[in-house]
């Protein structure tokens, strides 16, 4: 499996990564090599094998519905890139 520069651009867009033009070819080659290595998986016989998402066969624990958190906005926003009136600011969102 190899990735074209165009596919690299699409993936980078989905992942919201800005790539410089000269990086695209480079990444295309490297990512193709990685996928080439990964393609060895296709030879494995996995019919009827259940997927394994977690190393341990455990189930979800539940938390009681009790408020445990207090307002720490000032601490959380102390190093935030841009805030005003307690809000995080971003460039205008147009819908």
């Amino acid at each position, binding site marked *: 499996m190899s990735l074209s520069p165009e596919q690299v651009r699409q993936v980078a867009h989905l992942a919201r990564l800005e790539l410089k033009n000269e990086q695209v070819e480079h990444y295309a080659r490297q990512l193709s090599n990685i996928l080439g290595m990964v393609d060895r998986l296709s030879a494995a016989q996995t019919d009827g094998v259940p997927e394994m998402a977690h190393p341990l066969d455990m189930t979800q624990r539940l938390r009681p519905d009790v408020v445990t958190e207090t307002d720490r906005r000032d601490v959380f926003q102390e*190093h935030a890139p841009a805030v005003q009136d307690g809000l995080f600011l971003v460039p205008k969102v147009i819908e």
Partner: protein
Amino acid sequence: MNAPHQLSIRELSDGLRGKKFSSRELTQHFLKRIDTLDPQLNSLITVTAARAQRQAEAADARIARGEAGPLTGIPLIQKDIFCTQGVRTSCASQMLDRFIAPYDATIVEKLDAAGMVMLGKANMDEFAMGSSNETSWYGPVCNPWDLSRVPGGSSGGSVAAVAAGLAPVATATDTGGSIRQPAALTNLTGIKPTYGRVSRYGMIAFASSLDQAGVVARSAEDAAVVLQAMSGFDPRDSTSVERPVDDLVTGLNQPIKGLRIGLPKEYFAEGLAPGARACVEAAIKKFEELGAVIKEISLPNSPLSVPTYYVVAPAEASSNLARFDGVRYGHRAEGVKNLEDLYKKSRGEGFGAEVQRRIMIGTYVLSHGYYDAYYLKAQKVRRLIYDDFKRAFAEVDVVLGPTATDVAFKLGSKTDDPVAMYLNDIYTIAANLAGIPAMSLPCGFVDGLPVGLQLMGNYFDEARLLNVAHQYQQATNWHQQSPKGFA
């Protein structure tokens, strides 16, 4: 008497309680070593001298009150992947260069509560992605055994610091070998416990189903006492196991006569460097002398562990790293045109090349049309790898093999070839995929460079692994060697 940086944790603890030295003095000793020696290594991103001083004073007071535990007053270094309240927690990324964590990771809380003294935050591969510590935004870490070589990764700063005697012990994390491979390359003992044994809360996630915190130390005994304090159930981590922690220390001295050791033939096939092979084979002989029964076994799917890992880990990473968007914390690019530009520039600037590669691979394997062929397939092969271990542990008590294919390589020698770099982890990745505990311990030298031996155990068999390692270390002195120039 040996200098403090040559003493074991037990000796340091006895010294503190016997008033031979105070925690303040110990702390000063290590801070001074950091000051003079770390410029050669670059093993620390942040030194927390003032915080250490405060903790040392508190520890001394606790010792004076007779309330000290085995770790009270003992200095340590935290890998910079663990959130430490009020202290920069960078994950070695430009993205978090100015991130001051507003809370403590569970293991930080636990080790603080045990009275340990944090000297600083260790360098690492960016977001723990790498096997050489060359992807750090703060620059590579050098191996104290040969400054022109890598210390391994991603816990390169943790191992370099401990190997050089800048701290008695350090925390580390292991997603595909990031504790064991660097421990092997720096003559340390490092253990990655069973998945779920140590809380992941506050440990910046790389691949959630693989990440596990552990310790690097100069002996199995040191590792045992710190791992004991780190382990345990945490209600804040859904994947934390609700099960009492075994006593890891008391059983260290048990003889290992009759222990069944499995040697997976796949781990001794082509690709293992002759020098490293010779060291591991000598170690096997030593285990036979100690009364262990050696048996060849097979882990037939182990050749698939690297490709499986490079689907599962990047997939989870691409998702875990989506939160770094420059909105609430972390790096935010200047002069952006609009929201999309903010995201793309902040992430494009904030993440280094290896992180970007993995985000893109992960995004690709999860995307429409590729999910089944890559992600689901890898999850199925992961099951096959797990089944291999299940069969193995029906026959043997521990599995033994090399940790790495060779000794530490030269800085810069593999940075242009990601696939070659990834194959470094060929022996370590399977334990993460299966979630079993595994450790590396020193077993010899090739041309003055350390070689590591890997032990893998059944689920929650940390005590047994540490016992086996300790017995080996009672019969050998590889682990007592330290690098010239850092004596």
